[in-house]
């Protein structure tokens, strides 16, 4: 159980830190002692967790792993219909939150240790959110224990798969985890990271592009930077590399469906072709007939909770991510489901986004389709600038570098791109 992983750590070791709270090993142990009755009444039951502050969720994850038969991890802002669906799918009758902590108390029962299922909601950026079942073993089997002096910070919400990965990475290495609340602004986030001397940051490329524009980010003593959840393009990787000289920069490929994927550490976008050959350190990868990446992994979630089968007859999961072999590397193109159809020509939004982001002065771009009465859809782009640039100049670049059907018909300069709670561009 997760609690055992922290049991041996020094009593005064700060494990979880937010703007206004610190939980040491001792605090967590005391919290367990103080809540034995509650834990006992939740023993071997399915418990949903819904907390506004990530740090509370983190605490209860530590306390309930090995106690509850399943933990259903709910986003705080979940829609009512989705909540009801998830509770039904997980056969869960109790939601632990601020207001219910004092309910469900029975006394005097001996705690029985169980193997807890972690039910995590997929981000639902491209489809309806689904529940995927994991356990502590499947979530931690690729974690490499790092230096004890590392201080981790996650830009992800803890109720998401990627957020849980960072949480477990820190905890299993006995490191401090700095947790921001959902409402924390970018500037406050950087101040918190500076105060706690964060050395390892994990987040989406979209989030890092924003951070690079915030004063103070570049002075953090970062030793390790992990990007995940979206395609990490070369310009961003190079920019992080030159800002944080000597830091280890890796981009992680993982999806809730496939469990842990793999990471790329050579500072280059995409991944080496050798990953497509059999390698015992990596999940088995291949390119499917539709050009999407198929992945076979020990840690693949065994199935969707609602019973939909994830795995083909050979044990592969279709990730739905389009890939292409180019100049000796396998490059990510984008989501197969996100393709824009311009009069029969297929346009992958992420490819156009990468092109736009390669233009000097463009910080971030979101590309999407807009219905059109003549050709079905046309390409549109929302762009965040880092320096002053007009749309005419951007159009000129597009004319030189993109096919006519790929060029954004509408270019809108915006202050920022909407992101989901998992830090990805909202699509």
């Amino acid at each position: 159980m997760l609690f055992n992983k922290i049991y041996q750590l020094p009593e005064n070791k700060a494990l979880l830190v937010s703007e206004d709270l610190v939980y040491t090993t001792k605090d967590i142990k005391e919290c367990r002692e103080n809540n034995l009755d509650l834990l006992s009444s939740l023993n071997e039951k399915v418990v949903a967790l819904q907390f506004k502050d990530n740090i509370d969720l983190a605490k209860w994850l530590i306390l309930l792993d090995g106690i509850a038969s399943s933990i259903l991890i709910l986003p705080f802002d979940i829609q009512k219909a989705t909540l009801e669906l998830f509770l039904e799918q997980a056969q869960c009758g109790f939601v632990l939150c601020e207001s219910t902590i004092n309910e469900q108390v029975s006394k005097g029962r001996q705690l029985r240790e169980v193997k807890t299922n972690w039910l995590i909601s997929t981000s639902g950026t491209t489809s309806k959110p689904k529940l995927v079942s994991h356990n502590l073993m499947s979530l931690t089997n690729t974690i490499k224990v790092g230096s004890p002096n590392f201080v981790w910070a996650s830009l992800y919400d803890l109720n998401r798969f990627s957020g849980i990965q960072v949480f477990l990475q820190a905890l299993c290495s006995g490191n401090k985890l700095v947790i921001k609340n959902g409402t924390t602004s970018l500037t406050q986030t950087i101040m918190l990271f500076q105060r706690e001397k964060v050395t390892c940051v994990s987040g989406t490329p979209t989030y890092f592009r924003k951070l690079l524009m915030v004063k103070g980010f570049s002075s953090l003593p970062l030793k390790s930077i992990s990007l995940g959840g979206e395609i990490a393009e070369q310009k961003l990787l190079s920019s992080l590399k030159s800002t944080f000289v000597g830091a280890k920069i890796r981009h992680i490929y993982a999806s809730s469906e496939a469990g842990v994927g793999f990471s790329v550490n050579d500072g280059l976008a995409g991944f080496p072709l050798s990953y497509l050959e059999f390698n015992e350190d990596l999940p088995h990868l291949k390119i499917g007939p539709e050009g999407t990446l198929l992945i076979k992994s020990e840690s693949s979630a065994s199935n969707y909770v609602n019973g939909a089968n994830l795995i083909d007859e050979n044990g592969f999961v279709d990730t739905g991510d389009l890939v292409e072999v180019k100049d000796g590397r396998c490059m990510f193109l984008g989501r197969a489901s996100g393709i824009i159809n311009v009069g029969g020509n297929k346009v992958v939004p992420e490819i156009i986004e990468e092109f736009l982001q390669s233009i000097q002065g463009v910080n971030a771009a979101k590309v999407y389709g807009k219905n059109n009465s003549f050709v079905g859809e046309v390409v549109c782009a929302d762009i965040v600038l880092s320096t002053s640039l007009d749309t005419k100049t951007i159009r000129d670049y597009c004319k030189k570098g993109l096919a006519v059907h790929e060029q954004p018909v509408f270019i809108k300069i915006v202050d920022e791109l909407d992101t989901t709670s998992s830090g990805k561009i909202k699509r």
Partner: protein
Amino acid sequence: MNIENEVKEIFMDVLESTDKTLQCKLTNDAVLLDTGLDSLGFAILVARLDEELGYDPFTLMEEAVYPTTFEEFVDIYKTYKPE
């Protein structure tokens, strides 16, 4: 700017952005298909006009009307201009 001039301006802009050149003078009786703009060009023109003028007459039509000349094209925009 009146609708006709606005259409003309964006028409030329789209022509340029799609690497085409005007094949005939853009007079009222100019045949659209002979102007040099291809079908994607028209789609872009309609999309850009939608952004500039705030409406797309081709989605507002109950029955599809396909303009032949430049004048007919502009007339459609005049007819469907929101009150």
